């Protein structure tokens, strides 16, 4: 049975979910993000690029441990946190 987990949503992504905590299913982190995208279309591409690489400022935690691998397995009752490593003062855009 596909595990159901609670997902904490970072504030920049709450325009998709409308909530700071949602339920989703998936046997892996990657599958969980696919499920989130089915429920909240467009949310995955903001976090994962077209080459299936996690975007630079996205951080994923499973039960408090940072996870950088989309194949990371999930179990029922896991708690997944999606947060952003905010930064500023990046190179600015020239015209």
């Amino acid at each position, binding site marked *: 049975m596909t595990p159901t987990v609670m997902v904490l949503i970072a504030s*920049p992504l709450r325009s998709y979910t409308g909530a700071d905590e949602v339920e989703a299913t998936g046997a892996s982190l990657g599958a969980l993000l696919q499920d989130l995208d089915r429920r909240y279309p*467009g949310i995955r*591409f903001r976090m994962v690029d077209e080459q299936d690489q996690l975007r630079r400022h996205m951080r994923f935690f499973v039960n408090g441990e940072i996870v950088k691998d989309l194949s990371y397995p999930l179990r029922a009752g896991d708690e997944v946190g999606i947060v952003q490593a905010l930064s500023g003062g990046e190179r600015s*855009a020239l*015209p």
Partner: protein
Amino acid sequence: MAKSGKAKKPANDKLLLVATRKGAWIYRGDAARKQWRSSGPHFLGHIIHHMMLDPRDGRTLLAAASTGHLGPTIYRSTDLGKSWKEATQPPAFKKREGGRTVRHTFWLTPAHGNEPNVWYAGTSPQGLFRSEDGGVTWNEFSGLNDDKQYREWMGSEQDGTPNGPMLHSIIIDPRDPKHMYFAMSGGGVHETLDGGRHWAPLIEGMEVVAGFDAKTVSFHDPHCVRLCPSNPDRLYQQNHCGIYRLDRPGKVWKRIGKAMPATVGDVGFPMVVHPRDDNACWVLPMDGQTVWPRTSLDGKPAVYGTGNGGKGWTRLDAGLPRREAWWTVKRQAFAADAGAPVGLYFGTTSGELWASRNEGKAWSCIARHLPEIYAVETGIVG
């Protein structure tokens, strides 16, 4: 200065679409273009790289957005910005080994009038995309993004501006939707006659930085290319190295910036063409000396206009600050409307929005204290 608040919504209202590093604003002008009412910020905190009104319906807006931390996307409104929906499939390269990732969509162009709902997008890193459903879904266009030669000309992510290499100035010939141009910074100007099946560089006559070979396509950095609506055989270009005009079917760009005052030079980013007079265009010169400050020369901003195809240029600075205004105006941040006389509008990286209702003869400030302005476009409500 513009007023904030709700505006009436008659057809034919003038729109100014202002895209900034921290969101977008929409200004609605009265018939005389004297009073402007703003709505916004839309997408506060998002980087809005470009926002365009579809001239084919006068209602649909597309906005190319990203944030500093989330992936890029496209937003679409069919009610002039009252509500927005996100593209279900934003521009993205195909997944493949070593494949590229779109960092942001830089440029949006509505397609030919006979192709409703078709749009083109240019991205950073450089890619060309097309939507056939009004901007809801996007796909790579024409095989260009994978073409071995073009990939070489596009260069790596280190070969563009500090914000990445950009594909821009996507132009559709109003007489033939299969005849298109685009430009790359860096990577030259390119043309197709068959709807994107074949492309060819169009760089002859364009100069490059001294010491480099002008025959090498990737050395060319066209900042902004525009086609004259009144004469689609005439193109103007503001380049890293000069101002140019090209008259087709000719293939050699002529450096008309040589006629600019020597103390001003012909470096800059935007190029704006007259909607009805192919001899008239406007530029906003920037300082390209020594370490390339790319600010107004001597802190004295001025638009320069020509009415004779670039044989001579007139300084147009009435109403602009006389000194100590160290402005930078980006390539998408200067636009014309279709009024008579033509209205001109530009936005600075310091967040000021300026307008002229008389083709640059006099300028006034519409808004101050906006975030860094990336793009200014005009439109007419349908």
